[in-house]
């Protein structure tokens, strides 16, 4: 009955069919639906009502079976032992078991047939109708070829990728090696120079060093591609500037041509022509010195005058502002004024001892004083007025009290 192994064939078949490329969607969905339901539905226990009429079965078998004397050649059957239980869900194992069964069976059958001496193998020149048509086999062949091609292509791609990787590594190694070699050379040269110095070839030191500079310097030398003081777009490589004025005769014509070539272009790239470099920005040759200097001076002097004119006004304004605020401060200002007057007196007294510089300062002060006198007067008037008013008010209040 086979109760031992619970069945889950549907799920297995599902996977089995999924792997097949030519499977139809409808079929897949169907089998999927089967498998989904199957895990729950599949009867774990055999149903009790299931009929099993062993006697009937055996009787039927007796009825239909061929007589005993029917030879093996009629049946061509081989029974093969399965070594172990096959897991249905493992497609590969299952198919392998089928294959081995077929192979083993065929071997045994062929041995039997061989022993019987019957022809059983198709001769090479026996052509007959096949199960699959030639057209179909052509399709199969094409598919196999395309598959093989795909595999090969994939392999090639993979190979190329790996080669690329390897090339990169090699490149890195090469650059490293080169750097190392360079370093070593420099080191050796240095060493050699030192040795030379130490050994004291005084006479030849200069010569040697010159040579060294030539030899060792080469590696440090900047490439010819870019020269200092030349804009990247300049095709003449800075020659145009140098050859501003021409010589006479044939040379002149040629130089003219060169200049024009450098200016308007003759080959080479044009895009970077107008771009500045650090050198060109630092280069102030284009500016005439006299013009710029004169301008600067003029500008600065005018500014000085202006500042001198404005300064006192500003100070007065500030005074006025403070005066309006508080009477107390005005008093103090009054005091200040007195002190200032006193200082002036003292200044006058000191005039005898004063230097030229001091005189100048006083002169300036006096100048400003002329302007201030009127103002001061006005201030004092205003202050007195205010004070008077304030006193009156105060008196009034006292009187009221």
């Amino acid at each position, binding site marked *: 009955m086979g109760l031992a192994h619970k069945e889950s064939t549907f799920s297995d078949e599902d996977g089995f*069919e999924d792997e097949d490329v030519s499977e139809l969607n409808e079929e897949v969905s169907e089998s999927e639906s089967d498998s989904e339901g199957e895990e729950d539905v599949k009867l774990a226990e055999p149903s009790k009502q299931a009929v099993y009429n062993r006697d009937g079965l055996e009787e039927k078998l007796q009825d*239909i079976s061929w007589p005993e004397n029917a030879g093996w050649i009629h049946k061509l059957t081989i029974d093969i032992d399965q070594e172990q239980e096959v897991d249905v869900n493992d497609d590969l194992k299952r198919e392998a078991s089928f294959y081995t*069964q077929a192979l083993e*069976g065929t071997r045994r059958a062929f041995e039997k047939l*061989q022993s019987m001496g019957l022809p059983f*193998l198709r001769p090479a020149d026996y052509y007959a*109708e096949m199960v699959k048509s030639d057209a179909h086999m052509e399709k199969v062949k094409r598919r196999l070829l395309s598959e093989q091609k795909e595999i090969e292509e994939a392999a090639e791609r993979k190979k190329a990728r790996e080669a690329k990787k390897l090339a990169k590594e090699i490149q890195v190694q090469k650059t490293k090696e080169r750097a190392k070699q360079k370093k070593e050379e420099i080191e050796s040269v240095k060493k050699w120079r030192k040795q030379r110095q130490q050994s004291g070839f005084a006479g030849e030191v200069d010569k040697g060093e010159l040579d060294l500079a030539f030899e060792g310097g080469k590696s440090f030398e900047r490439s010819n591609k870019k020269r200092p003081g030349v804009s990247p777009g300049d095709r003449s490589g800075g020659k145009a500037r140098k050859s501003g004025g021409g010589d006479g005769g044939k040379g002149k014509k040629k130089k003219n041509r060169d200049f024009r070539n450098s200016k308007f272009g003759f080959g080479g790239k044009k895009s970077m022509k107008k771009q500045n470099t650090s050198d060109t920005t630092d280069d102030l040759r284009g500016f005439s010195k006299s013009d710029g200097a004169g301008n600067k001076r003029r500008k600065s002097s005018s500014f000085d005058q202006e500042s001198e004119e404005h300064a006192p006004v500003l100070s007065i304004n500030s005074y006025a502002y403070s005066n309006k605020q508080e009477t107390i401060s005005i008093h103090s200002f009054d005091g200040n004024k007195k002190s200032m007057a006193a200082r002036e007196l003292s200044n006058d007294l000191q005039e005898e001892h004063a230097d030229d510089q001091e005189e100048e300062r006083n002169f300036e002060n006096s100048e400003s004083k002329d302007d201030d006198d009127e103002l001061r007067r006005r201030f004092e008037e205003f202050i007195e007025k205010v004070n008077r008013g304030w006193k009156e008010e105060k008196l009034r209040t006292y009187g009221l009290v």
Partner: protein
Amino acid sequence: MGKKRKHTEIIEPTKKDDSVTEERPKRTLLGWKDKIEMKETEAPGVFRNKEKVLVTCSRRINFRYRHLMLNVVSLLPHCKKDNKVEAKSSKGATLNELVELKSCSSCLFFECRKHKDLYLWMAKSPNGPSVKFLVNAVHTMEELKLTGNHLKASRPLLTFSSNFGKDAHWKLIKEMIIQIFGTPKEHRKSKPYHDHVFVFSIVDDHIWFRNYQITVPHNESDKVARGGLDKMTLVEVGPRFCLNPIKIFGGSFGGPTLYENPFYVSPNQIRALEKKNKAGKYAKKVKAKTRRKMHELSNPLEPDEFADMWKE
């Protein structure tokens, strides 16, 4: 046509007589004296297999299953293909009639239901047993993955896994398979060489069918080259299918049930259950929602004292 019939008619009487004389005791016991007519012609004690298989299918069959049927037809040179049969409850009688009309001794009937499920009936004609299988995992010969090819009417080797001897119903099924799938020796359409092998294997209580082409290095037709058996390789030709036995009946397309697969669940039931599960999902959701609502109603939240704190 006329010629053929004559031929069969000529042979039948002799066969009948022989068989009657041979197996009388058995048949007298069961009372089936004159009914067995297909099997043996043993005039001088020689067995002659005169099996003929009627292969047909139900109407509204899936193209895939129809192709499977055609593949089976191409594998069995001793079969007769017939028109589609309406699959209704009385199909058994019509099929029996048809088999008799075609003078066949057995029948393979591919019954497709709902364009989805394929059932295979394997019946011995007038009074032999009949088995109903559910067919799964169908792959036809047309699939390009199956790259083998073999002669059209060569006799196949039949290999069975040893677990066919495990039980009575397996034994019966094996016998039927041998008779139906084995090409009779010296059948007039058959070819004298063996270049393909059938595999019938019981795995997980299902019968799995495979068909392989045999390639052996050889020079002569009756001898394998030295070491050829080791170099022998098989290439799958197809078709593939898997048979799940459902029932064995005593008669052909009917009669008393002798065996019933205790594990069998019909695909209809499976689908129904699945549908139910799907439907149950929604019902469950709705139920959960209502339950939640009821719960919220029965346990109302306490009014929050800070609820209108920020509202002013």
